[in-house]
C-alpha cells in the first residue's frame, strides 16, 4: 500500500527570504501534490493607499522592496490618465532608465538567490557584487538605493545630469563585461543544468490558466512583455523560451539582464531635453487601468477617483500573486530535493503577493 507523507516547506525555510508555506504531499521522494498557504505578511495596503491620492506614491513604493519604482511609475501613469495629462518625454525616458536599473538589481538578486539555493556561494556573491554597483549608481542618481522617490504625478522630481548620464553609460559597460562570465556559468555549468533542466516544468496551457507573467510566463512560451507597448521607440523584442523549466526561467533572466543594459543605453542616448513635470491640480474624477512590466512580470493598478483626496478604490495586481500560485502546477512529479531551486526559479515575492 502506498503511503503518502505530508511535509511542510516553510513558512521559515533557508531558501525563503519571506514567509510562505507549501504543504508538500509526497510518495516517498516524489511530490504528488502541493497546497500553497499564504497570510503571514498581509498588510492591508490597498485600503491604506486609497486614503489620500497625494500620499499614495510614498506607500506604493513600499509594496515591494525590489520593484518599488515600478509600483510608483504605474500608479503615477494611472493618475496621469485620470488627470488627463501626460508626463513629458524626458520624464518618460528617466522613468525607463530607472526602471531598467531596478530590473537589473531584481534579476541579479534572483540569479544570485538561485545560485545560493544550489550551493554556489561564490556565484551568489558575484551576482550580488554586480547588484551592489547598480544600487550605488541609483543612489548617486536619485539619492536612494531602493525606494527612489523619483516619481510624482505628472513626471519626475529629479533630472539625470550630463555627468550622471556619462557615469551610467560607463557603469553599463562595466556591468556587461563583468556579467558575461557569470552568464556563461548559468548557461553552461553541468551541475546547474542538472539541477534545472527539465525540473519544475510549467506548460504553456498551465501558464495561461494560472495567468503566469514575466520571466515565468515567457519561459513557458507566452511571448508577452508590456515593454513592447510601453517603451515605444526603443525597438524592444521580448525574450521567450519554450521549455518551461527552471533552466528556462533562469535563462530568461540572464538574457534580460543584457537586454536591460542595452535599453538603458538607448534610453539615455535618445533622451530629449525638456521639462520634467506637467502640473496636476485639484482632485480628479475617473477610472484607470494601468500596466507596467516589472522584473517579475505585469503590475497593474486599478484606480477609481471621485473628486476627493480619498480614492474610491485602489487595486494592485502584482506578478508574484499569480506566479507563486503556478507552483502548484510545477512541482508534481518532482523530487523533494528539487523543490528549493524550483521555488526560487519563480522569484517569489511575498510582500507583493500579500500587499
Amino acid at each position, binding site marked *: 500500500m502506498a503511503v503518502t507523507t505530508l511535509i511542510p516547506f516553510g513558512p521559515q525555510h533557508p531558501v525563503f527570504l519571506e514567509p510562505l508555506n507549501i504543504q508538500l504531499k509526497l510518495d516517498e521522494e516524489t511530490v504528488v501534490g502541493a497546497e500553497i498557504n*499564504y*497570510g503571514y505578511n498581509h498588510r492591508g495596503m490597498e485600503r491604506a493607499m486609497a486614503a489620500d491620492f497625494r500620499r499614495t506614491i510614498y506607500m506604493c513604493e513600499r509594496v515591494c522592496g525590489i520593484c518599488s519604482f515600478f509600483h510608483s511609475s504605474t500608479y503615477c501613469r494611472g493618475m496621469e490618465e485620470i488627470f488627463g495629462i501626460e508626463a513629458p518625454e524626458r520624464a518618460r525616458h528617466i522613468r525607463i532608465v530607472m526602471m531598467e536599473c531596478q530590473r537589473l538589481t531584481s534579476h541579479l538578486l534572483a540569479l544570485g538567490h538561485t545560485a545560493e539555493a544550489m550551493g554556489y556561494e561564490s556565484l551568489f556573491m558575484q551576482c550580488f557584487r554586480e547588484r551592489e554597483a547598480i544600487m550605488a549608481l541609483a543612489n548617486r542618481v536619485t539619492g536612494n538605493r531602493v525606494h527612489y522617490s523619483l516619481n510624482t504625478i505628472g513626471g519626475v522630481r529629479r533630472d539625470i545630469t550630463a555627468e550622471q548620464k556619462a557615469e551610467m553609460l560607463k557603469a553599463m559597460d562595466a556591468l556587461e563585461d563583468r556579467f558575461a562570465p557569470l552568464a556563461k556559468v548559468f548557461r553552461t555549468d553541468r551541475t546547474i543544468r542538472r539541477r534545472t533542466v527539465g525540473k519544475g516544468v510549467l506548460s504553456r496551457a498551465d501558464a495561461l490558466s*494560472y*495567468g503566469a507573467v514575466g520571466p515565468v510566463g515567457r519561459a513557458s512560451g507566452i511571448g508577452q512583455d508590456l515593454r*513592447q507597448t510601453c517603451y515605444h521607440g526603443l525597438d524592444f523584442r521580448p525574450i521567450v523560451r519554450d521549455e518551461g523549466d527552471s533552466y528556462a526561467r533562469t535563462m530568461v533572466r540572464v538574457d534580460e539582464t543584457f537586454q536591460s543594459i542595452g535599453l538603458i543605453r538607448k534610453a539615455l542616448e535618445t533622451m530629449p531635453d525638456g521639462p520634467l513635470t506637467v502640473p496636476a491640480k485639484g482632485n480628479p474624477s475617473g477610472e484607470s487601468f494601468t500596466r507596467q512590466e516589472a522584473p517579475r512580470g505585469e503590475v*497593474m493598478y486599478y484606480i477609481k477617483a471621485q473628486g476627493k483626496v480619498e480614492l474610491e478604490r485602489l487595486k494592485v495586481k502584482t506578478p508574484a500573486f499569480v506566479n507563486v*500560485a503556478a507552483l502548484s502546477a510545477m512541482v508534481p512529479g518532482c523530487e523533494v530535493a528539487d523543490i528549493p531551486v524550483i521555488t526560487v526559479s519563480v522569484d517569489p515575492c511575498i510582500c507583493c503577493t500579500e500587499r
Partner: protein
Amino acid sequence: MSTHPNAEAIAKIREMSKDNGTRLVTIVAEEYVPGGLELIYVLDAGGELRTVRSRSGLDDEQESLSSVFKGAENMEREIIDLLGARFEGVKGGLFLMPGGVVAPLRRAAAGGE
C-alpha cells in the same frame, strides 16, 4: 443553467477564453454602493486589456471563474477575505486568519473579535 448574478459575465469570459492566448489579469471587487458588489474581470486578449463587469448584492452567491482559469481561485479567495463576498465552492482564508479582522474593504467594515 446557472442562476448566479455573474453568470452572464462568466459565460462571456468562457467564450473569450477559447481564443488561445487570452488570460485573466485580475478581478477587481468593490462595494460600489452600500450593499452592492461590482466585480470587474480584467483580461488580456492578445495584448489588449478587456474588462467584463458584473453588479449584484454584496451577499449574493457568485459563480466561480476557477473552472475557466485556475488562477481565478486565489483572486476570489482574496475577495472573500476583503469584502466578505461569496463564491460557489470557494473558501476564503487566503490572507486573513479566523478570529481576525472581517471584510475590511466593506464600507461598514464588519469588524472582528
